[in-house]
């Protein structure tokens, strides 16, 4: 009985070609300004990818396009080989297995930490279930384990609005974890974190790669250096350079964009 309660179809995502996300020729413009301009990006299954770029390069818009918040004017977004994300709503995309952490930490401030995780938990999310089903022991266990992972076990019953900034960031990451997505989109996870918290976050994200595919947008270079094997540089809405951190750092185009000519 529990299995039907918790199981959501995962096997629809076709990653036989090794790629989990395909963004092709994406263009998004706002009042004539092209936030994304013919963007092409491929994310491998199980990869941890960092995306960097100056302000206004289109990083957040790209996340909006993937999660269905913004519809592209042109181009295609495929999750696996067969799932067309441009035809799906936000909640369908989330159900398909894409989780997102916002730039500004967004948790449910009036709910307790435990309830935040309960709401995000990978389960059926229709009205009937919400009214008449209760958490199974198995689900409680998942939540408790996640609480341990994100170091908020003792805050389980605390209102999320009372957490410190770093803890809020971790709670949001925890909410992604219990959602158990195939692909995690993480926008500036270490903004406002202390040095130690940053290190712990780097460790956590690295440990997720493999089982999940992770895309991280971040400004903090030390952090990126510590986790990334592949980095994509966005500039003016398209990919400027892609490769290892070292390659990217030595790329003359990147140097020009970052340091100015």
């Amino acid at each position, binding site marked *: 009985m529990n299995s039907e309660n918790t199981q959501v179809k995962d096997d629809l995502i076709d990653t036989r070609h090794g790629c989990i996300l395909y963004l092709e020729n994406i263009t998004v413009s706002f009042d004539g300004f092209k936030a994304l301009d013919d963007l092409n990006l491929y994310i491998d299954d199980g990869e941890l990818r960092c995306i960097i770029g100056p302000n206004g390069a289109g990083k957040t818009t790209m996340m909006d396009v993937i*999660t269905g918040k913004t519809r592209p004017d042109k181009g295609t977004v495929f999750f696996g080989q067969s799932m067309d994300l441009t035809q799906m709503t*936000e909640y369908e995309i989330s159900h398909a297995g894409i989780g997102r952490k916002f730039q500004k930490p967004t*948790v*449910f401030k009036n*709910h307790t930490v435990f309830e935040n995780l309960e*709401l995000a938990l990978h389960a059926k999310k229709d009205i009937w279930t919400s009214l*008449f089903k209760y958490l199974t022991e198995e689900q409680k266990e998942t939540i408790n384990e996640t609480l341990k992972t994100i170091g908020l076990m003792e805050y389980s019953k605390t209102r999320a609005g009372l957490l410190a900034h770093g803890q809020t960031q971790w709670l949001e990451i925890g909410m992604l974890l219990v959602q158990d997505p195939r692909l995690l989109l993480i926008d500036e996870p270490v903004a406002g974190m202390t040095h130690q918290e940053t290190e712990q976050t780097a460790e956590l994200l690295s440990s997720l790669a493999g089982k999940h595919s992770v895309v991280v947008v971040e400004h903090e270079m030390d952090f990126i250096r510590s986790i990334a094997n592949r980095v994509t540089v966005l500039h003016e809405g398209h990919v400027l350079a892609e490769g290892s951190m070292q390659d990217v750092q030595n790329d003359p185009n990147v140097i020009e964009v970052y340091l100015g000519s």
Partner: protein
Amino acid sequence: MPLKVVILRIDLIKMIKQLISLHSLRGWLFSFGLLALAVILLPVLNIFIPEESFLHVPDYIFPLLGKYLCYALVALAIDLIWGYTGILSLGHGVFFSMGGYAMGMYLMRSIGKEGMYKSDLPDFMVFLDWKELPWYWYGFDHFSISLLAILVLPGLFAFVFGYFAFRSRIKGVYFAIITQAMTYALMLLFFRNDTGFGGNNGLTDFKRILGYSLQEPSTKMSLFIITAIVLFLSYILSRYIVKSKLGRVLTAIRDVESRVMFSGYNTLNYKLFIWTLSAFLCGIAGALYVPQVGIINPSEMQPANSIEMAIWVAVGGRGTLVGAILGAGLINVAKSWFTVAAPDYWLYFLGVLFISVTLFLPKGLIGIFDRFSSQNKNKKL
């Protein structure tokens, strides 16, 4: 493809446990105490205590209290959609009136040939020189069909309206404004004689309900008791909903809807569900209101009326259920007093009350109790 049989399984034991845990023991005693006061003590004091005694409860008290309880049910319904889900409706007068008109139509048909014109048609139709009943009045001679209309029509209307509004992602002030427009438009429609609901006079001069004379004190008392029980059950239902995971999803939608969507919830369905339920409860309130007050007319759909309903909730305290009931009760008792003692000053009083509650008691009157109880807790620490 074989038809998949959906088995609706509910974990009964857990559900009962959940029901019991809705209140502390004190809370349960208190709510059942109030219910017993309404459905047992007041009738007993009315029937068995001689009229000379100061303990005697006079007959007129029942329709009056019944009216307040109907308003309390409206406030409860608004609290679900506004207090918990953050969607401000300034058009709940429409759902209230729909339930009221459906009941009114039944009561009109129950008059039979005892109207002023001794006709089988309602008086206003004779007056308009109509020869036969419009098709949408068919069936309202039967209580069962009228009851069905009361239970279905307000919710159905809300569902359609809500579907288009929520699908277009209309929120906040914009939603409040279109609900005002909705109630205003329907008021104008119902004001027209041609619409077939009695024009600006509405429906009135009712004689009996289910064969019982509406003039009889016992009928009035029964209606009051029914209203009290309906309010109690609606309160328990609402309490169950807001304490369930569904309630947590609703408050999450109120706080950050985008996060709820990205967590995989179809927020449209959730909003539609609670919006429709709210309209459903409001329609029942309207239907109970009409036989106790004796009239329903389009002025119930005045935009100001719906705004006043929202004020009851704001004054009592949003997102608490109890606060909504308290607010509706207190404001309407005050209104009854003011409209007799100083009718010109009522709206000023209401305005001042609303502003001062917003400024000084953002959590409403119920917030005062919370403040006291948290102070007590602090002392213990």
